[in-house]
């Protein structure tokens, strides 16, 4: 299975008309493996192993994600092992994140477990993100 090209997100939020794109929901019992690409919202309560490109990603409490995330807006309430590339990152109090968080603005709630580097990047970095950098230890 070939690796699909990186789908970059729009820096500016979508206009209200296109916001009606139906959001996808991966339930608690679902395990997905591979590449998930969407222009809309993605809610994950199950387990995902792989790369996610979305406009907005919500990893619900109890959700587990192993891999990289590229999105405009990311909200984490579950466990994540991997890297986040997002303009806006919110880590809820139930979040457990290991890896790297490339962000333009980040919110970490009290109680979140974060074992990660959080490099700040200007919006232009995310705009010109055509290929994910090689993971470094």
């Amino acid at each position, binding site marked *: 299975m070939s690796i699909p090209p990186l789908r970059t997100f729009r820096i500016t939020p979508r206009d209200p008309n296109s916001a009606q794109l139906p959001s*996808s*929901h991966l339930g608690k*019992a*679902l395990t997905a493996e591979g*590449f*998930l*690409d969407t222009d809309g919202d993605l809610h994950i309560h199950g387990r995902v192993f792989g790369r996610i490109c979305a406009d907005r990603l919500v990893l619900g409490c*109890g959700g587990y994600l192993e891999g990289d995330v590229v999105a405009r807006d990311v909200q984490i309430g579950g466990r994540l092992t991997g890297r986040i590339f997002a303009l806006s990152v919110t880590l809820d109090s139930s979040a457990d994140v290991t890896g790297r968080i490339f962000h333009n603005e980040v919110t970490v709630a009290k109680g979140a477990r974060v074992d990660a580097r959080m490099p700040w990047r200007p919006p232009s970095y995310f705009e010109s993100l055509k290929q994910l950098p090689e993971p470094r230890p």
Partner: protein
Amino acid sequence: MSMFTRNDKMPDANIDEAVRVRETPPVTAAPKPAQATAQPLPTAPAPRTTGVSVISKALKITGQLESTEDIRIDGEVDGDVRAVSVTVGSGAKVKGTVYGNAVELSGTIEGKIEAEKVVLTSSAHMSGDVIHQNIKIESGAFIAGNCRPEFGKTASASKSTATPMGLGAQTRPSEVSRA
């Protein structure tokens, strides 16, 4: 931002109210509604997680999906899908094998279906084999491939997950007779 402001404001508001209550006891009736409106805020952002997974039409998945519950696919899946009940909506596309107890197809599958109960609706487009125990094909459905019943294999493979469905089907008539 909102996270902190919300958490910080809550105790602040309470303290303010408590102070106000202490200072001016007759005004207790006024702050109470304010407290009531402030309380639902933290609980609001937790949406109820339904068991059914929905792959919306904007989503493309390259890889495998596996679930012990139902899956509804309106988008594109390039890989195998395994679930109790799989619904492939019209406009959806699956390239790969779909395994399940019940599969309802209104979109396109390029690959194979292996399920106990298969429903191909009028907009279904199936290129590949269908292995089933029970099949319904509406007029207008497109099939390019073999349809063959296979009783031993699919039953044994999905027997453990099949029992709830069987029970459900059995209980329904008894409930009707009771009524």
